[in-house]
């Protein structure tokens, strides 16, 4: 879309795919077509396609190994498609009927591309550029191109590359070491190439529409604008925006680095939730005040089935070592409900969310539960460990778990193995537990707001049809949060909240007003939540 032509250069607006700024020469690249192939005998055509597929597989594998990480995963889809017999066989069937290899190949791919492009789902639409990439790569070889990857000439530093759409493999062939940016006429913010651009910090704007040729360009990934052949005034404004962006990012990082968040003079503890040990590798994890929720269900899905004591101990120990003196709250197996585990959770329950899940399930399977408790009791010697039980309804359940844990500790000691009983707390997610919170002799409480809201509102949280009924800020939910927070304050037991609400800047002010002073969020949300609290305490709106 053209915005204005009154200043020296033209300005276009698209959609942001990756934030950042690039200023440099404007370079167009295109797919580059060779002539069509003359069909040979069917067996020759089949052989040509087989060889082209093989060569393409090798090129993609080479690109993937050079790029590694996320890029490699993205290219895996293309390799998987080349290895998909259901997909490839009909193409060879066409060839045996006399079709030329290139025509048979591209019509099969075009059909898939059209199918993806017409999808209502943006993620699926975005996959069509992966397919176009694959189509063109194989075609290039079939139509006599070298079997070496077509090289894009080395781009000058900071160039703004313009293309209709850019497949991931072409992105990886461009040398981005000197920066630069990507301006696409079509494309999508959810495409694989957009993920790659974000991962590499390359600014990218998509859906710019038709663009004229130009010598130089300014690409602003934040406001999604592309300015061609800019005048001096445009360049000055662009550099000002670039500088403002740099400062704002630096200030979010600075807030993260501050030791503590405070609100109304009270310390707000910000902890993180982790699903698995690798989550600790997030760059911001180190700024958390500890781990508010470590889920352990991932241990149940290993290739060898139920993890033994040693395997579990090593995982818990690794997390405690990472945390050093900071608190680590580990939740015992929370299987069942929407988290079925073969061989552990019951089958055929009419309503698994109200069934044998969480601590209920662990208490009827003491054989499996004791293995986890043994590993936790040993790990408790290694750091600031707290253990919490999920899906608790009655104080008697907490006491049964405590008794089993104490027995486990005694067994370990009798065997001469170092062990201790850690602090024990409960998840507050069953409304009855929140209503009768004063009856629980727990050292701490953690509000599982996702389940609490779904039980209070009688809304399956995974049922999109319920829409706005599923509102975690409903007064009934907030009342139970207040009740729990007040009890914690009176009893001297810390209360945190570890559901999705804690990671949502719009919910955070309400949670603080409810009396919560500990929130456990996902590591990628940590900076934003800390900034939200910082703005609230400085009289901002918190938005």
């Amino acid at each position, binding site marked *: 879309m053209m915005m204005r032509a009154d200043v020296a250069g033209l300005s276009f607006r698209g959609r942001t795919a990756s934030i950042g700024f690039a200023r440099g020469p404007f370079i167009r690249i295109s797919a580059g077509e060779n002539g069509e192939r003359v069909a040979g005998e069917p067996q020759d055509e089949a052989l040509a396609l087989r060889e082209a597929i093989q060569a393409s597989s090798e090129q993609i594998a080479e690109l993937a190994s050079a790029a590694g990480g996320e890029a490699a*995963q*993205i290219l*895996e*889809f293309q390799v*998987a*498609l080349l*290895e*998909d*017999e*259901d*997909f490839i066989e009909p193409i060879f069937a066409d060839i045996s009927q006399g079709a030329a290899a290139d025509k048979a190949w591209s019509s099969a791919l075009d059909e*898939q591309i059209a*199918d993806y492009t017409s*999808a209502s*789902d943006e*993620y*699926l639409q975005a*996959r069509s550029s*992966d397919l176009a990439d694959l189509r063109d790569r194989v075609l290039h070889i079939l139509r006599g191109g070298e079997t070496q990857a077509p090289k894009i000439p080395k781009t000058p530093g900071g160039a703004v590359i313009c293309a209709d759409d850019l497949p991931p493999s072409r992105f990886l062939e461009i040398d981005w070491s000197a920066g630069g940016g990507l301006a696409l006429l079509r494309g999508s913010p959810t495409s*694989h190439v957009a993920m790659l651009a974000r991962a590499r910090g390359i600014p990218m704007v998509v859906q710019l529409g038709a663009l004229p040729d130009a010598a130089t360009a300014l690409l602003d990934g934040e406001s999604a604008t592309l300015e061609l052949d800019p005048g001096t005034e445009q360049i000055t404004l662009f550099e000002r925006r670039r500088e403002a962006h740099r400062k704002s990012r630096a200030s979010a990082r600075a807030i993260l680095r501050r030791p503590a968040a405070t609100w109304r003079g009270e310390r707000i503890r910000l902890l993180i939730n982790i699903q*698995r040990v*690798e989550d600790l590798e997030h760059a911001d994890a180190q700024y958390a005040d500890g781990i508010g929720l470590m889920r352990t*269900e*991932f241990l149940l*899905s*290993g*290739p060898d089935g139920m993890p033994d004591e040693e395997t579990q101990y090593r995982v818990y120990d690794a997390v405690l070592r990472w945390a050093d003196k900071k608190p680590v709250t580990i939740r015992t197996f929370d299987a069942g409900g*929407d*988290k*079925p*585990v*073969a*061989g552990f959770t019951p*089958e055929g329950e009419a309503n698994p969310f109200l069934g044998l899940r969480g601590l209920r399930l662990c208490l009827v399977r003491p054989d499996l539960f004791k293995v986890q408790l043994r590993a936790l009791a040993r790990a408790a010697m290694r750091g600031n460990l707290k253990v919490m039980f999920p899906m608790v309804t009655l104080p008697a359940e907490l006491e049964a778990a405590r008794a089993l844990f104490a027995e486990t500790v005694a067994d370990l000691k009798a065997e001469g193995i170092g062990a201790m009983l850690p602090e024990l707390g409960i998840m507050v997610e069953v409304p009855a537990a929140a209503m009768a919170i004063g009856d629980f002799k727990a050292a701490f409480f953690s509000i599982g707001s996702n389940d609490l809201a779904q039980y209070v509102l009688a809304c399956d949280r*995974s*049922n*999109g049809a319920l829409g706005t009924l599923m509102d975690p800020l409903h007064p009934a939910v907030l009342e139970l949060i207040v009740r729990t927070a007040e009890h914690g304050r009176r009893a001297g037991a810390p209360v945190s909240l570890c559901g999705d609400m804690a990671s949502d800047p719009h919910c955070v002010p309400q949670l603080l007003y409810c009396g919560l002073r500990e929130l456990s969020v996902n590591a990628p949300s940590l900076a934003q939540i800390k900034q939200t609290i910082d703005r609230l305490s400085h009289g901002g709106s918190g938005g």
Partner: protein
Amino acid sequence: MLETSADGPFVTGKVRLIHVVGMHARPAVKLTKLAKRFQAQISIRASETADWINAKSVAKVMALRAPRDSTIEIKAHGEDAEAAVAALIDLVATDFPDTGA
């Protein structure tokens, strides 16, 4: 669950797709890769009325367009059918982890 059909005994299972964007490229690649490690013939579908499709075909699995929270039904027959169904359920239930699969 063990059942029988004209093709002989087969094993079935169901699992909810919790992946945030549904059955997209990366989940589909992981699912087909895992399915290919078994000898059994494995079919899946994302709704009770849909046709069964080959779980070893990434193009077909993508074409399911299974959204988040849909229930994936799995059916397998062959020697290692039981292990195949269990492994696939596990993969989907654990949200396609990057390791161990």
